Every structure is written in structure tokens, then in C-alpha cells.
């Protein structure tokens, strides 16, 4: 396993329970999608596995090595192999450095290349992510959002990492630009076999890029499955609700809606049982007692819902009103 996360817990100062006992793994060359609504803990997990944040509990194994607690020097060395790309392309790059210097930086930090070799490598990287050579002498504010995101990706792959966390890398980009970035990521993975943790709230994009998908709700995994299974046969009521609220960009597709009411619990004061119980259309009295365990439906597909045991977990959709 490239990455193996066991019982990850993170609690922010102020009592926000952002990540609540999350376990998953990513194999070499695999893309794991992480979906969930705002505040479900996606970014926090991204920061924890790249150790930009120290977890409150749990263990993180990267290439078999326990990186949960590492001294700063070891952590810095690790960063050559473990990288992250952030959502906001405009904010992710130092506004006072040229693109060329930004691309050279990871090489300067982790290799012994001399200046000339770094410049040559920066050119190659720019070319690899299809940035015009002229952009190397530009400053970030002179580039478009899509180009900036290519710079961030180029920086992330500069030292040929084993795993890249992509935290909503396309969410703030326009549709046609988005496709270009996804294509680039797809090519990079095919060429280098790099593993990816792809974080997004956009279900369509996650379905397109991921081999496997994890659905988070309030910092807990409610379901995980191979991408096709998850999108075609969602088992957990929350996953069903989430998928049904999605608007496919095709007017010919009829919407099958599940109405949910009720408020999302506060992450500061989480209920004892299933976090979805307050909104779940098929909740049982037992659901509020204890967190439901993850139940395997088939190989690689599991969901944490009490209804799965007797197969009553599927909610009837409300057909779209004309």
C-alpha cells in the first residue's frame, strides 16, 4: 500500500470534530476520490495525510513508514515523495516569485542539481504541463487560473512523488479549463503511476477520475466502493440523497430526488449514533444509539448503515415534478 490510514481522528482547537475515526488506503497507481459536502472534513484529511497538520489520533503509514509523528527534518525530506495541490490557484503561488523560480524551488529543496540544470528541468516541467515557455518569466498575477493550476501541479510533480493529494484542483476553474487539467492529471498518472487522493465535492468529476470513492459525512466515512458501483448502486441513504441532488448537465436525464429535511448536526456537538439519523428518511430507533459499523456488501464495497443488514437501505426516489 502506498498510503494506509488507520483510525484517523482530528479535533481542532475549539472542539470542532473534523475527522472522526477514518480508515482507508490507497494503492500505487490508484486514484481514490474523496467526496462530501462542505465541512465534511475532506481538506482536513488532505492536510493530515500530507502531514501539514498533526492528527489528534490514529496512524498514517506512507510506503510502509509511520509518518504520524515525524521530526521536522524527516518531514521535509518526505515532502519530495508526498505532495499536495490546493483548490485556489490564485492564492497557491507566492505573488512575488516568477513562475520559473516557483518551478525551480522544489528542485532546489530536494535535489543537488546546479542552477543551470534546475532551469533546464523547470523548462521541461513547464512543457510537460503545457505552459508556454514565456510564462517562466511571468509573475502569478499575469497568468490565468488554469495556467496557475498547471504551475501548482508542475511544482507538485517536480520530484516525482509517489502520492499527490489534489484538494479540489478544478473547483474554481471554468468547465473547458477544468477538462484540460483533468486530462493532464490523467496523462501524468498513466505515465508515472503516481497515486492520487482526489478531493472534490463535484460528483461527476470524482466519478470520471477515481478508481475508488469514499463518501464522507461530518468527518466519518459513510460508504466506500469502486467508482462505478458507488455511483450506480449507492447503498448508504446519505450517498443516495447526495447523488440524487446532483444535477447532471443533460436535460434529457430525469432527476430522481430524495427529499431530506432537518439540519446537519454541529461538528462541535455530534450525536452519539449515526450522524445522518436526524435527516435520514429511513432512520430506525436503534440508529441514534451507537455509530453503525461499516458493513461489507461485496468486495471493496462497504457502507455504515444499520439497514444494510436486512436490505432495507434503499430509499424510494421522488420522481421529478414536471
Amino acid at each position: 500500500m502506498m498510503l494506509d490510514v488507520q483510525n484517523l481522528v482530528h479535533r481542532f482547537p475549539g472542539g470542532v470534530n473534523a475527522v472522526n475515526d477514518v480508515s482507508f488506503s490507497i494503492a500505487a497507481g490508484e486514484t481514490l476520490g474523496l467526496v462530501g459536502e462542505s465541512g465534511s472534513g475532506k481538506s482536513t484529511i488532505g492536510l493530515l495525510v500530507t502531514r501539514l497538520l498533526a492528527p489528534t489520533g490514529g496512524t498514517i503509514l506512507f510506503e510502509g513508514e509511520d509518518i504520524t509523528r515525524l521530526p521536522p527534518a524527516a518531514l521535509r525530506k518526505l515532502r519530495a515523495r508526498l505532495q499536495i495541490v490546493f483548490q485556489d490557484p490564485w492564492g497557491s503561488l507566492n505573488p512575488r516569485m516568477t513562475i520559473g523560480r516557483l518551478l525551480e524551488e522544489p528542485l532546489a529543496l530536494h535535489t543537488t542539481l546546479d542552477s543551470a540544470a534546475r532551469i533546464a528541468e523547470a523548462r521541461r516541467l513547464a512543457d510537460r504541463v503545457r505552459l508556454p515557455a514565456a510564462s517562466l518569466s511571468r509573475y502569478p498575477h499575469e497568468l490565468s487560473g488554469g495556467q496557475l493550476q498547471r504551475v501548482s501541479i508542475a511544482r507538485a510533480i517536480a520530484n516525482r512523488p509517489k502520492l499527490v493529494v489534489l484538494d479540489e484542483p478544478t473547483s474554481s476553474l471554468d468547465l473547458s479549463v477544468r477538462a484540460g487539467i483533468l486530462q493532464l492529471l490523467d496523462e501524468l498518472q498513466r505515465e508515472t503511476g503516481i497515486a492520487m487522493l482526489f478531493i472534490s465535492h463535484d460528483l461527476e468529476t470524482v466519478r470520471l477520475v477515481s478508481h475508488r470513492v469514499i463518501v464522507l459525512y461530518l468527518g466519518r466515512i459513510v460508504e466506500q466502493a469502486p467508482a462505478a458501483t458507488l455511483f450506480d448502486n449507492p447503498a448508504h441513504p446519505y450517498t443516495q440523497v447526495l447523488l440524487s441532488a446532483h444535477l447532471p448537465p443533460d436535460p434529457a436525464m430525469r432527476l430522481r430526488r430524495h427529499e431530506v429535511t432537518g439540519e446537519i448536526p454541529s461538528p462541535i456537538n455530534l450525536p452519539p449514533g449515526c450522524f445522518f439519523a436526524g435527516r435520514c428518511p429511513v432512520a430506525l430507533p436503534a440508529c441514534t444509539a451507537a455509530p453503525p459499523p461499516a458493513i461489507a456488501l461485496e468486495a471493496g464495497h462497504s457502507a455504515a448503515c444499520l439497514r444494510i443488514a436486512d436490505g432495507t437501505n434503499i430509499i424510494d426516489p421522488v420522481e421529478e415534478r414536471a
Partner: protein
Amino acid sequence: MRLLEVEDLHVEFAARGLDNRVRVARALNGVSFTVDAGEVVGLVGETGAGKSLTALAAMGLLRAPARIPQGSIRFEGQDILAMSDRELEKIRGRRMAMVVQSPLTSLDPLKRIGDQLVRMQRVHGTARGAEARARAEAMLAAVRIPDPARRMQAWPHELSGGMAQRVLIAMALVNEPALVIADEPTTGLDVTVQAQVLDTLRDLVRARNLGALVITHDLGVVAHYCQRVAVMFAGRIVEDGPVAEVFARPAHPYTQALIASTPGRIAQLGYTVTGGTPPDLYDLPSGCLYRDRCPRATTACLAPPPRIALDATHGAACHYAWEAA
């Protein structure tokens, strides 16, 4: 009934560069569309295409340094561009209303939401006192805020993003305007919340026979909540028509590229579109503005393409529109 009619609207900005030369950004380059009562029209396009500017112009909100060198905007038959600020203030918030993005910054943080709804009515003289409060509460119920009587007393910071967005819709609709313009009303909201907000808006449009212009960059919103769509690129409407028609038979290469960029299509057909940057508004090319990115461009495209009508309701600004349709 025709509510809004925008014709050949041009908007430009003059700015002075580092080198002291005045340069003109041509942000809108001939925008034409209409909104009728009882319909939701979608306006889609990428960042900087001019969607928000179009909305601001229609509301009569454009201010210097923006200039309108050409074009007309008619609302309920009146010429918006010829109206004084006083006249505009009378219809804005009353006959036409706007719902903007970032709901939490658009509500007055120091006033309870009930009071804000009441003030909205008092300013326009539609209702006051107990009547205004009753209407405010009914409006909150209409946008499906649970327990509206209690929520009247809520402060803006107590609302979630989706609820705040629905309160903004309530503010826009409390004076029963004829036209609502919603600029990215659900951008940044979660899908489940987005669905609730859009349902609310659509139900109100139907129930009250309003006209709505929904600005978005999300094709899913257009596909499921709009009857007609106008696709914008570099300050021009490049294609317009009934939603089902435009999605099934997109005629403009840009519309085709947009649809081909959706993950669903990519999954079916692979990556077919190489995105690009929009043209430099300070230095627009002559002829078709999409030329640099267009796979179909020929020398004919050095001349600006007219809107070619494919049928009574569907048209595209491309020399080869009829070939694709």
C-alpha cells in the same frame, strides 16, 4: 409577455496602463436576449464572459468607468438606459430585483432578517407595519425557511449559507417584482442545498408568473431549471435557444466544447477539447472572437459572424451554424 429585452448591448472600460496609455477593455460586444413572464432563462459562460456586467446593466447599475457606447435595454417597455437614478430606484427592488452571490455579505449584519424584509417593503411603499410583517413572514415560508415566525427574529450570522441565500430570494421577491435576476445564486452551496434553493426559485416563478434570468456557469443548473439558455463568450451571446434543443443540437463550436467538457461526455468520448484562454478584452481580434480556439475556423471567420437563426427559437453566432445543427 415580454419583460426584458436587451439588444446589441456594448459595455467598455477605459483604464490607464503603466505606460500611461489609455486602453479600452471591450467587455460586452453585442449582447441580445429577452426574458418573458413565466420563464427562467439561463445565462451561461466562463469567468469574465460578461455575465455579471449584463445583469448590472439590465438593473441600471452600471457606473463609471463603465460606458455603454451602443445598445438598448428595455424593461416592461421602458428604456432603462434613458432613466434617471431616481426613476431607476423606483423600479429596482420593486418591479425588478436581483439576487447576488455571497448571501452573507449581502445581508445587513446588524438587522434582524424580519426587519430587513419589512424595510424593503417600506422603502418602496408596498406595505408597512403589521401588514409588512405578515407579508415578510409569508415570504419566508414561501422560500421554505422552517419556522418562519421565529426566523423573523434571527440575525444574518445565525443562518447557514443555503438559508441566507433563500432569505435573499425572499428579499428580492417580497415586493412581488415582475423580473428576478439571480447572479450565480447557488455557487458555493452544497448540492443538496443548491437543489432546495433552485426549487424555491422555480416554484415562485411558476406560482407568480415571474420572469427570471439565472446566471450560472453550471450546465446542470441550466439543464434542469431553465427553459431557455443564452451562451456567452467574450461579451457576446454566441448561442441561444430552448434548453433541450441547445443541449441536443449545439450549433456553436463553443457550446459544443462546453458540453464536451462535462465529465459525463469525457467519460464517453475521452478528452476532446483543449481549453484555452479567453481573448484579451483590451485587444480583441477582428471577426469571430472564438477564432483562436475554434477547431472549425476558416478565413471566413475573419469577418464577424451574424446570429444565424436555425429555427424560430434557436440561433448561433457562427458562420457555420447550419452545418452543425
